[in-house]
């Protein structure tokens, strides 16, 4: 009989992977990996805020991610600081402020490793409710903005000339990304969230012909990574979050090989 904690871990992990992968496709297509990394690193600030102010940590991370998103959007209007520099500042100052804040919390014993690298084997039913509730919201939003966001990704100026409300669609996308980071933290931790977004998407690029196909295949690759990683973690007693990422990387390598073989035959 499979233990309850493993069932919960599988349900939570697969849920996160299936939500993250289609979003991750846009992260890959729009070359926003560094923005995702910034959200993830600064998420620790959200954890610290949640602990200090005493509200739910997922909510804390969601709030800090939304704040970071809005700062990035606001700063896009100025040109004196490059966007990569700004993202670097936000990522590491968020992480640092979070760590410093946590060090002040003498009364609370904080398992820092659980936030940095995730602890999927410890997910509760409450966490699963967050993942599936938030995940449904994310996927519903993505379905609504799919066409305009894809048009903007293919050619921004063309889409704007045809009347796509660029700023609104972009902000909606960045906010769904912020929510995804918040719900994924428990599974792989803030340092590895980005891997669940981009590695499955990158793994299936070589075997995809349309955007929709790539999104569906990426979701499958993400789910498979979670399942393989969790069983490997159990079998060899390795940390669960990193094991999932390693499994995804193995899939990515396989995807590269299959893509190369296809290309050679074509």
């Amino acid at each position, binding site marked *: 009989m499979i233990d309850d904690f493993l069932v919960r871990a599988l349900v939570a992990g697969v849920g996160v992977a299936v939500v993250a992968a289609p979003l991750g496709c846009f992260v*890959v297509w729009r070359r926003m990996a560094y923005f995702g990394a910034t959200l993830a690193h600064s998420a620790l600030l959200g954890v610290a805020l949640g602990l200090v102010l005493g509200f739910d940590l997922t909510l804390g991370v969601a709030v800090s991610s939304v704040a970071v998103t809005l700062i990035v959007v606001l700063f896009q209007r100025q040109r004196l600081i490059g966007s990569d520099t700004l993202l670097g500042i936000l990522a590491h100052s968020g992480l640092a402020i979070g760590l410093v804040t946590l060090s002040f919390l003498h009364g609370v014993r904080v398992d820092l490793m659980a936030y940095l690298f995730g602890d999927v084997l410890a997910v509760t039913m409450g966490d699963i409710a967050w993942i599936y509730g938030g995940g449904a919201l994310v996927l519903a939003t993505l379905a609504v903005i799919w066409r305009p966001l894809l048009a903007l990704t293919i050619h921004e100026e063309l889409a704007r*000339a045809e009347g796509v409300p660029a700023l609104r669609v972009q902000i909606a996308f960045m906010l769904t990304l912020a929510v995804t980071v918040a719900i994924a933290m428990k599974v792989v931790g803030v340092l590895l969230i980005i891997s669940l977004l981009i590695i499955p998407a990158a793994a299936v690029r070589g075997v995809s012909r349309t955007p929709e196909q790539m999104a569906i295949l990426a979701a499958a690759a993400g789910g498979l990574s979670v399942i393989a990683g969790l069983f490997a973690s159990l079998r060899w007693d390795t940390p669960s979050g990193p094991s999932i990422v390693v499994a995804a990387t193995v899939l990515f390598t396989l995807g590269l090989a299959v893509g190369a073989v296809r290309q050679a035959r074509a």
Partner: protein
Amino acid sequence: MATDPDTPEPLVRADGVDLRIGRTQILSHVDMTVGRGEIVTLVGPNGAGKSSLVRVILGLLKPSGGEVWRQPGLRVGYLPQTLSIDPVLPITVRRLLALAGPGAADKTQAVLAEVGAEELADRPLQELSGGEFQRVMLGRALLRNPDLLVLDEPLRGIDLGGQLALYDLIGRLRRSRGIGVLMVSHDLHIVMAATDRVICLNQHVCCSGAPEAVSRSPEYAALFGPAAARRLAVYAHQHDHAHDLHGHVVENSKAAGGRA
């Protein structure tokens, strides 16, 4: 404006448009219109502000002064300069066209036939040649049933045969669908033969009118050099008087009147 019965119904109009970016004056006091069923071509040297003017007219750039009027509900088909789509995004011609708008998926094959690109439907977009890509993007623009087609340097990277075919196609579409066309080019002579009105731009409007008249104007010669003007005049002459071996002069307005 609408007093002259020969003036086509205006689709877009720029009135005294100024554009400054930082301290640089890009456009100064530009007036222009494009009417239904009319092909208007913007010519001018590099850096003359042609693309900027197009982007102001499309509403992508806000003018610093003056006004841009667009017919309410105007549907625009736009072919931007860029000829590539990032290979990180997998997409076939058929899927791109299906995304053009509601109901586009059903008309994909018909529109590909219209632009002579039927056999490209299942090809990945990134594998197309420059000319094929332009045809597909033109097809995509047509799927939106545009009133106005805007083409920014549509001939980049296309060989001469492809250029003539593309102009031929645009001319036919203008007649069959009655759409207005605004084109940008610095490729002078082919453009001139396939257009109703030429606007010569160098920050401001240097001269404008029928291609023949513009090519003879001193402002045009000053802008492009007498050699270019002469070459152009020769070309226009050959085009308009191909059957006139006895020296009878056919007026340009009659000879070029393709949209009566």
